């Protein structure tokens, strides 16, 4: 047990694109909620024109360059590759992935960590669809869409996970490496593909409830094309897993 405690270190990967207003807040909150935990924050910024990187550099002055790492890429190359890029630079044995837009509150990090230690899970994923979880800022239409999408996926894929499209997750580093290399989708579907493939590979997956508050700063881009992508992704997973 003692030894295990010593071995648990965390790399927190935060992809950013135009998150100047959010990144300082999220870093502050991570430090606030993870006292006595060995962790590093890896910000993967895709050349945000709003100056996100300058803010991150200021944060490095405050928190130290070995606690807040900036691993930037020259231009917007997409979320999926941002994760693998961040992971290449992750030096700890566990990796947490979370959004920078405060939809994923760092106060849940301790419950992810606790759950992993209690169960020895390979992956702990956040879920909005159980007691204690939820969303804020969605209208009935969006909730309905989300529920329908979820029921469809549950019925067709039997993934054994209640929330497939949530990206707030904790992975054993080796597991993330293994799963991410087989995933090709983009956007929401990427999260779904990750968890379905992990589940098919027999990895031990646990869930913790989280509440998802829709972004306060910056704009959301949920629309009809997302639904089409989702259905395509579902079909793709049906024939490949």
């Amino acid at each position: 047990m003692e030894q295990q405690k010593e071995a648990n270190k965390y790399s927190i990967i935060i992809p950013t694109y135009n998150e100047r207003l959010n990144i300082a807040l999220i870093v502050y909150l991570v430090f606030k909620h993870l006292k006595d935990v060995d962790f590093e924050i890896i910000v993967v910024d895709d050349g945000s024109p709003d100056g996100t990187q300058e803010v991150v550099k200021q944060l490095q002055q405050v928190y130290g360059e070995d606690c807040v790492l900036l691993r930037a890429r020259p231009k917007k190359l997409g979320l999926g590759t941002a994760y693998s890029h961040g992971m290449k630079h992750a030096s700890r044995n566990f990796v947490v992935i979370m959004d920078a837009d405060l939809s994923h509150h760092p106060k849940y990090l301790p419950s992810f960590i606790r759950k992993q230690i209690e169960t020895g899970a390979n992956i702990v994923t956040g879920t909005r669809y159980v007691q204690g979880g939820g969303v804020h800022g969605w209208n009935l239409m969006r909730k309905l869409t989300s529920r329908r999408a979820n029921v469809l996926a549950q019925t067709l894929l039997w993934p054994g996970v209640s929330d497939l499209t949530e990206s707030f997750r904790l992975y054993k580093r080796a597991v993330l490496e293994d799963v991410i290399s087989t995933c090709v989708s983009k956007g929401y579907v990427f999260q779904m593909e990750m968890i379905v493939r992990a589940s098919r590979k027999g990895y031990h997956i646990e869930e913790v409830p989280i509440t998802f508050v829709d972004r306060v700063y910056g704009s959301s881009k949920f629309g009809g094309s997302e639904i089409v992508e989702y259905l395509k992704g579902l079909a793709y997973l049906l024939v490949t897993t």
Partner: protein
Amino acid sequence: MKYVIKILSLLIAITAFWIALLEASVIPRSYTWLLPVYFVVLLGCYGLLMVGIGLMRFSTCPQEARLLQQDILEAKRGRRGQ
């Protein structure tokens, strides 16, 4: 085994069972002919039920949004303090 194959084999099994029922005519044929309709209706009901239950359990958390606002204020103040 790929999941489409699983689902397809399940469908084929059900169809085979249905054809067998038709052939054997243990129950009146007119009933057997209606079974697929029942099946589809049942599936639809299951879907509606699950979506309904899900929607009911799907909580909106206004207090979470408030807490987040507090945290944002605190974070802004905290950072200025440094």
